[in-house]
């Protein structure tokens, strides 16, 4: 009965053809505008939301002067940043220094090309959507390393090295989590994954994958508790120490953009993207994206930061084995029930997932410590 209901929903919203409204170029223009509006609007709202929510959780008010309820704070920050003098360090590698922000920012927006805003409504509904997402999102670490290297500043170099090590390590748990989801959904296209979440979101069927994706996602985008790449209290500002003006604004935008993109991917893959009753589908997507970001802000304001070697050991010794076990279990389930896994497997999955996490954390030892220095 449940599947019948949701089938009605899908049938009610017919899939948009891939070249709606008929001309491929108009499709491209309209969706580019939609993506840019969504991206920039989300970034501004995220910045505002983070500062307000952070403030409320820290027993203080956030920004509340600029505009009604402080809503225009991000715009005021943008104007301030645009008016700053762009200083280039004397020893910097000029071309690399100049290109780094662009190389960091561009892949972030490109990921949104495959995200469906309604049934079939994405710029390009690739049938290898997940591979595209993972591949493109790891390109921004090149830009970060370019920034750290070209600044000719030891702090920046430290930050950039940490960043590259962390991004490469956390790709593995993300890929494993997404691979389990792909197995259950039966397709790598993001729209198909959303359609396959007919009666219940993927979060219930794959709780362990959601757990992995959330943690590894926070680490990929340098959010607390893994924000040691730009740890304010340690290495001044990490790789973007030497950047001012619009270049710094691009890094800032890229950081929040990565948060937008990661939240969107998690919302699409695990929470059911544009699915939901009564409201238009793009509104559901936006609400879910904001909910996931709220979870990220919540963890940021509560937890202290981990050390770099603890970060690496978390990725390789804790998340990676969990990801492998999750993949194994999911493939066993899919093999046993090729026509669709019955709904009562949700409970088994949740119980098994929780038990695995408890068991792994018992055996997981944070290594590292004092190194004997001669």
């Amino acid at each position: 009965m449940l599947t019948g209901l949701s089938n009605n929903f899908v049938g009610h919203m017919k899939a948009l053809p891939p070249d709606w409204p008929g001309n491929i170029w108009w499709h491209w223009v309209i969706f580019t505008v939609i993506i840019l509006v969504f991206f920039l609007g989300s970034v501004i709202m995220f910045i505002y939301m983070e500062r307000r929510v952070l403030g409320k959780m820290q027993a203080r008010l956030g920004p509340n002067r600029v505009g009604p309820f402080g809503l225009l704070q991000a715009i005021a920050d943008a104007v301030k940043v645009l008016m700053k003098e762009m200083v280039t360090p004397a020893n910097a590698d000029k071309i690399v220094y100049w290109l780094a922000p662009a190389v960091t920012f561009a892949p972030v927006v490109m990921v949104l090309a495959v995200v469906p805003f309604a049934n079939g409504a994405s710029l390009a509904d690739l049938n290898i959507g997940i591979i595209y997402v993972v591949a493109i999102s790891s390109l921004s670490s090149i830009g970060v390393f370019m920034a750290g290297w070209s600044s000719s500043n030891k702090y920046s170099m430290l930050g950039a090295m940490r960043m590259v090590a962390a991004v490469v390590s956390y790709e593995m748990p993300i890929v494993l989590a997404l691979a389990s989801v792909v197995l259950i959904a039966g397709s790598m296209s993001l729209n198909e994954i959303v359609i396959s979440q007919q009666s219940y979101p993927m979060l219930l069927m794959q709780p362990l994958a959601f757990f992995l994706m959330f943690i590894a996602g926070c680490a990929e985008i340098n959010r607390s508790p893994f924000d040691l790449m730009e740890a304010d209290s340690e290495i001044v500002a990490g790789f973007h120490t030497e950047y001012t003006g619009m270049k710094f604004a691009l890094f800032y935008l890229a950081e929040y953009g990565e948060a937008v993109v990661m939240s969107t991917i998690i919302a699409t893959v695990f929470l059911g993207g544009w699915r939901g009753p009564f409201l238009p589908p793009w509104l559901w997507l936006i609400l879910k994206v904001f909910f996931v970001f709220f979870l990220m802000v919540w963890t940021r304001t509560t937890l202290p930061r981990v050390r770099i070697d603890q970060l690496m050991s978390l990725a390789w010794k804790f998340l990676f084995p969990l990801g492998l076990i999750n993949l194994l279990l999911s493939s066993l389930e899919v093999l046993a029930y090729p026509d669709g896994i019955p709904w009562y497997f949700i409970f088994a999955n949740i119980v098994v997932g929780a038990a695995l996490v408890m068991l792994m954390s018992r055996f997981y030892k944070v290594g590292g410590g004092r190194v004997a220095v001669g």
Partner: protein
Amino acid sequence: MTLRTEPFVINMGPVHPSTHGVFRMRVTLDGEVVVNLEPIFGYLHRGIEKLAEERTYTGIIPLTDRLDYVASMTNNLAYCLSVEKLAGITVPERAEYLRVIMSELQRIAAHLISVGSFFNDCGAYFTPFLYMFRERERIVDLFEMVTGQRLLYNYMRPGGVSQDIPEEFLPALQEVLKQMPLYIDEYERLLKDNEILYARARGVGILTKEMAVNIGASGPVLRGCGVKWDIRKVDPYSIYDRFEFDVPVGTQGDCYDRYRVRIEEMKQSLRIVEQAAKQIPDGPIRSDVPQLIRPPAGEAYGHLEAPTGEVGFYLVSDGSIAPYRCHIRAPSLMNLTALRDMIVGWKVQDLIVIFGSFAITMGEVDR
């Protein structure tokens, strides 16, 4: 095949988001591991000891405020103890109780800042820091009620205190005493058994007992190593022998133990303030001391347990209205002696955490 690496020198300069004050370290790093560390201070040297030779005994008290500017009541008190020892001045009962109440409240306020900045260095993005500042506001409001000042109080005088408490002080104090334990429990709930804090601070920056005694450490740094040495118990000054309180002691001497010692000391200070507020008598707040004190020629060393450690003043007098020599024993300067040994071998992020767990104030180190 080993990788050829080359150590490089990084300058954590005087202006840095996490050095508490203007403190400079030249750190030699091999990758992320600290190989050598050279602390350089003196950026806040104001020559207080030399200035003290030209001011009257009462006029030095504002100078002593600026030593450990986070805990100025205890600095004032240490100096006044020294002058009283030198000149043989007695202090009336009410003044003694007021001194104890103010010192212990100051200890709580200073520890709130120390623990808050420790968590800031661990990376908890200002949340514990701001919560602790919210509590510190209440204590600072109490101080403002009495002295009119929020940071540098200039309250103690040789022979007593400078102002009496207004009527609304004791009820407001009772309010704070009722609510502080709940707030401290709130911090403990979220932070005491935090896994990430364990990973960052447990076993990090261990100071052994022998080294701590050898370098002249005092305060939470010494007690975190397991040495039960608190001036309030071993050499009681003022009326501390009338109050019941425990001295918390750590086990390993790592950053986590120092943080725990500070939290427990806050709870013990609340106990002392409760007992003092119940027993406070009426009476004069300052004994009859001339405006220009001329102590007889001699020397005296007065010390007490300040939030950072043992603050002492060695005063040499030649019978005139200004001291011949005023030497300040700064606990933060002593505690820093072991900085290099504690940090070498750890990583850059641990350096910040270990340095933060000392909770030094540069005003004391440089004087």
